[in-house]
């Protein structure tokens, strides 16, 4: 049998061999697509940040030197931080519950998570625009419960963006965290109980530390995704709390200032890549991406 493989291999040598594709060749079409329509355009954009309107670092000086832009950076980090924090706070107990729940009940929760994740982003954002408006259901409910007298401004501000973004990010923290908690051996917690830990101690000193790598990885992912988010902040946020992605779009679309647009894009890229580098360094590649 081996000799047949060798015969085939030998047969493919000679003149016909030039026509055979190597494995690397197979990746060339996709590589070409990415280089031409991803690497090159991004490189050109970044190059324009140091060449337009005049060569030099003028755009960066303006971007990092003006309080208007610094406020936008600060707001971007604030929103992303808040969204990450709230997502973790809600996501951990849900992931924990999912890991221990009877599988029937868990599959219902999973179906709802998937439905929410797969529903069109604009449809979800629209839902919150309507729910949170001045005469919306949330305000009516709060007034009905006697918690407030006058409708609260819930949209076009930080509250609106945080609620809308948390809604979108929650599944991204629950699903990986569920995977991590699921892998923890229940015997370890039994051991903690046998050694005299009460339920609070077992949570704080055993379960939380064991789930920490998953929490950190999920939090970092949500934070990075939030940093570059465009649609939801643009629709649920106000002009007073613009985020970085909107600033980039505005530079390019309304101001047609490619130099500044490129500079802002580079800042976003550098922050994103730096945080991913942290992710790779500490948590490995296995938790990256939406698997």
């Amino acid at each position, binding site marked *: 049998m081996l000799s047949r493989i060798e015969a085939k291999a030998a047969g493919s040598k000679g003149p016909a061999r030039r026509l055979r594709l190597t494995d690397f060749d197979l*990746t060339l079409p996709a590589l070409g697509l*990415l280089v031409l329509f991803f690497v090159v355009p991004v490189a050109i954009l970044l190059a324009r940040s140091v060449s337009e309107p005049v060569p030099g670092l003028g755009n960066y000086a303006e971007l990092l030197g003006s309080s208007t832009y610094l406020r936008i950076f600060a707001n971007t980090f604030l929103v992303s931080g808040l969204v990450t924090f709230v997502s973790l706070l809600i996501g951990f107990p849900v992931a924990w519950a999912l890991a221990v729940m009877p599988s029937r009940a868990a599959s219902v929760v999973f179906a709802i998570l998937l439905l*929410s994740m797969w529903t069109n982003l604009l449809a979800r954002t629209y839902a919150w625009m309507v729910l949170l408006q001045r005469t919306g259901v949330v305000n009516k409910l709060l007034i009905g419960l006697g918690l407030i007298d006058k409708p609260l401004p819930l949209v076009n501000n930080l509250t609106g963006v945080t609620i809308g973004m948390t*809604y979108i990010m929650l599944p991204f923290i629950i699903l990986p965290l569920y995977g991590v908690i699921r892998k923890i051996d229940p015997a370890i917690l039994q051991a903690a*109980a046998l050694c005299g830990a009460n339920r609070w101690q077992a949570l704080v000193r055993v379960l939380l530390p064991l789930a920490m790598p998953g929490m950190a990885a999920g939090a970092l992912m949500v934070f990075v995704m939030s940093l570059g988010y465009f*649609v939801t902040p643009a629709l649920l946020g106000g002009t007073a709390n613009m985020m970085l992605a909107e600033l980039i*779009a505005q530079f390019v679309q309304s101001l047609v200032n490619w130099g500044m647009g490129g500079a802002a894009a580079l800042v976003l890229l550098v922050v994103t890549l730096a945080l991913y580098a942290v992710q790779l360094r500490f948590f490995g590649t296995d938790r990256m*991406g939406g698997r």
Partner: protein
Amino acid sequence: MLLNFDRLGWWKPVLIGITLLTTAFLLLPILFIAALSFGSSQWLIFPPPGWTLKWYQELLVDPRWLASAWTSFRIAIIVTVLSVLLGLVTSFGLTRGRFMFREALKALFLTPMILPVVVLAVALYAFFLQIGLNGTLTGFVISHLVLALPFSILSITNALEGFDKSIEDAAVLCGASPFEAKIRVTLPAISHGIFSAAIFSFLTSWDEVVVAIFMASPTLQTLPVKVWATLRQDLTPVVAAASTLLILLTVLLMVLVAFVRKGLKS
């Protein structure tokens, strides 16, 4: 103790409570939009004062809504086909190949998935303005393909890594040509990966907003761009009707995926 549902003690009601609330938080807005799309109030009052189908009527007789939905569908189908074909070829190269920089190449192929879409959108917009692809179907397809390809490569690579290559080699030994063995042995075995590659590629393109906002022209826009442009003006219930149809499509896709998974298992 804490990982045994029956021995959670007082954590049990807490966990159940939070999970119920979160599930409601995730589900209710979707149901709410569906209900409002049948409500008669122009100002989206809830509960609606009466029920009507007029928003659907407005949606379905407006040629601009229909045209944008058709554009979205055409782009998504072309992107799906190209993304699956390219994903297949690339994944074969990546999983079977033993060449230098293979891991680096793999990472490069996945970067469009993790980078902020707005950066890609702005960069492609500038590039396409220069080469005359802005506002064209080709421009849309290329930019959505860049975004969809990572998902396709990821799904198919996963499936291929779980496939035992010796089965393919056995087919070759039994007289099949290497190409024939791939088509008739390997492809059926990794069909679940190809299927999820197709679903993810379709959804990536169909739902994509950010790049599309930049690519769109007054004569060529996708459904998300139409929704976006409408929402920038007002919160008309017509968008609720459009959203409900999109939600319906999502549910149908989920059911389809569940069925196919079940079919593949048995």
